[in-house]
């Protein structure tokens, strides 16, 4: 067994290191760049610029701001090495895109490889997405101050 694959196996879909609260960002681009720097650092993505482009392409099709201050930008591309969900809560809500009037403050960046090998990972992401419609869940995302608490909340998804 080689060490590289062992390390990669440890990469979870949701990681405490991909959770940031009260970041000072006020545009979609700033939020995406902030999140992408982190997923790149943690080796989920090997080409941050290309991932950014893929996410923006998807945004062009239709804004991913889904109301209630939530946005779920996402990209499905071969520069994603492992599926992930990264979370950022900005210090204030801002208008997500020129194309829509929706504001965002709770931002979930989702990345999946072009060829997804693991249904389990996709299942985790879809179940988490569904939870975003739950009022109590949203309230906690908005108020918890410790990334550890948010991690525990996100990680408690039943698959």
């Amino acid at each position, binding site marked *: 067994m080689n060490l590289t694959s062992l390390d990669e196996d440890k990469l979870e879909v949701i990681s405490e290191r991909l959770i940031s609260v009260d970041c000072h960002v006020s545009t979609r681009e700033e939020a995406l760049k902030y999140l992408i720097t982190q997923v790149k650092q943690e080796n989920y993505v090997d080409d941050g610029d290309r991932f950014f482009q893929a996410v923006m392409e998807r945004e062009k099709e239709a804004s991913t701001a889904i109301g209630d201050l939530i946005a779920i930008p996402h990209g499905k591309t071969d520069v994603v090495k492992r599926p992930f969900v990264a979370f950022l809560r900005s210090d204030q809500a801002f208008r997500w895109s020129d194309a829509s009037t929706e504001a965002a403050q709770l931002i979930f960046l989702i990345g999946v490889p072009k060829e997804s090998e693991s249904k389990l990972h996709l299942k985790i992401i*879809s179940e988490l997405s*569904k939870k975003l*419609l739950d009022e109590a869940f949203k309230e906690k995302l908005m108020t918890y101050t410790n990334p550890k608490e948010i991690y525990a909340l996100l990680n408690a998804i039943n698959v």
Partner: protein
Amino acid sequence: MKIVAVTACPTGVAHTYMAQEAIEKECRKRGYDVKVETQGSMGIENELEQEDVDEADLVILAIAIGIEGEERFEDKEEQGKVITVEPGEAIKRPAELLNKAENL
């Protein structure tokens, strides 16, 4: 009231399943019988049989892409019992969607 629906979006990782959840939630709230098929990155799940469709009073297609098995809904289409919306609309305003569907 029995409602069947299909949800699908281009990437198929989030909106497809959120729209499913939103429609199911709103239908349960109203005490309706509901079955939602998802066509996403995990393939087709909770697939609607022709029988499910035939028995349904209404069909909701919350889709942003072409779907498989659209011919299942032809009869309902003729009866004017199919409503098609963007998945994002179903997620944001499920109550409005159901109100509209009920008035078909």
